[in-house]
């Protein structure tokens, strides 16, 4: 396989495709287990869309490397996957699941909107198809955001805990790609990731402030109840290391200043949660190489 340094287009394609594949895999884990049947269908369908989008993008990878879609999805070693760490985290509870879907799909919408203007026509065409389908994902996430954020205390609390737990790693969806300067220079990636992150974060900040949930941008941490303020506005367990890395409010706007949490996904470095996911996802393919179904 061509390495990332051979062709920076691969680092872009694999970041997009692997995010979709791994996110789709996590969504599919709700099949049969969601709180009610409509959500069972919703997450199964969203997962199916995401995997289909990964397959479209792997089709472009195939043109560069010669490896087919199944082999790319299921036949790579762990360090060859370029998804952001956020995508590989287990589903935990409903609050975390919705928080992550909201953050992931709103971030995905920002980068896809930019890529619709990519100078790489084959990619722009696929992105055009993807965006029409992703609209249903963002609608789903936004409706659940409203329901949980304005819902009963327990729903709001668990949603806030979910946001707190994944906001830092969501920022790292915009970690710069290997070879990004070349991609931006030739217009394949119309805007650098730092600019996409600024757009997403500013809008997210507004939405969270509107829902009085912007405290999750200041403090994040373990998925436990201790991160939600009491009625007096106090937060138990506040510590320096619970700040979201590199996120700050400046002149009325949420901005990114430097660091990333959970960075490394774009270079093939993953969390402890990736191995069990990879092991399950690729087991059949590894035991029966070239299997078709």
């Amino acid at each position, binding site marked *: 396989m061509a390495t990332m340094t051979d062709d920076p287009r691969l680092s872009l394609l694999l970041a997009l495709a692997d995010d979709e594949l791994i996110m789709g895999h996590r969504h599919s884990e709700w099949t049969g287990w969601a709180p009610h049947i*409509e959500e069972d269908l919703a997450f199964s369908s969203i997962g199916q869309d995401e995997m289909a989008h990964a397959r479209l993008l792997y089709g472009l990878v195939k043109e560069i490397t010669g490896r087919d879609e199944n082999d790319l999805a299921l036949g790579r070693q762990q360090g060859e996957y370029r998804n952001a760490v956020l995508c590989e985290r287990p589903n935990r509870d409903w609050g975390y699941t919705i928080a992550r879907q909201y953050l992931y799909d709103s971030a995905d919408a920002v980068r896809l*909107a930019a890529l619709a203007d990519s100078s790489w026509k084959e990619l722009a065409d696929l992105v*055009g*198809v993807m965006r029409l*389908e992703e*609209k249903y994902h963002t609608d789903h996430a936004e409706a659940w955001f409203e329901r949980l954020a304005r819902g009963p205390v327990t729903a709001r609390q668990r949603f806030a805990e979910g946001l707190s737990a994944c906001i830092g790693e969501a920022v790292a969806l915009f970690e710069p790609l290997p070879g990004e300067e070349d991609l931006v220079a030739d217009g394949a990636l119309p805007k650098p990731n730092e600019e996409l992150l600024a757009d997403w974060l500013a809008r997210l900040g507004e939405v969270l402030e509107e829902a009085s949930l912007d405290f999750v941008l200041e403090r994040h941490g373990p998925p436990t109840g201790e991160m939600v303020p009491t009625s007096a506005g106090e937060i138990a367990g506040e510590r320096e290391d619970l700040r979201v890395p590199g996120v700050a409010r400046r002149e009325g706007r949420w901005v990114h200043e430097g660091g990333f949490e959970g960075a490394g996904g774009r270079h093939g470095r993953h969390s402890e949660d990736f191995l069990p996911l990879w092991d399950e996802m690729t087991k059949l393919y590894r035991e029966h190489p070239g299997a078709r179904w």
Partner: protein
Amino acid sequence: MVSTEVDALELTVWEALAAVHDPEIPPVSITDLGIVDRVRIGDGAVEVDLLPTFAGCPALDVIREDVERSVERVAGDRSVVVRFVYSPPWTSDRITPEGREAMRGYGLTPPGEGRVFLPLASLTQGSQTATCPFCGSADTVLESAFGPTLCRSTHFCRACRNAFEAFKPKGKTIR
């Protein structure tokens, strides 16, 4: 081959395509669904470009095989090449009036005009999202933007108290 013969063959191919039906919506032909983008008669091959409705639709492989079989029957010595293409993206306004009518007859509400609806029933109480394909009432609620296939949403008719499905609108523009 002179152009009139090529034209005649192209027409025959389109007729063969009109006889291929969506396996998940049997009364609707793929031409009425608007997924045939182009037919090209080359010297050695008949090429058919198809636009997937939804990228993850599992019926795509079946449709491709059905198209190959159907076109091979009329292609004579030419080979048949069937491809899925992604430009232009398929949108639900490509469905013909005949296709919409066939859907309704099948108990599936055809896609609405453009507006994409909210996905949760509790947030859309009272809003009219689709017309019941059984009784024609507009007094319906959206149960979910997702359903048994990627292209369908699920609804309930408060007039005749039937659950029903609709083909999702898929638009050209993102709002």
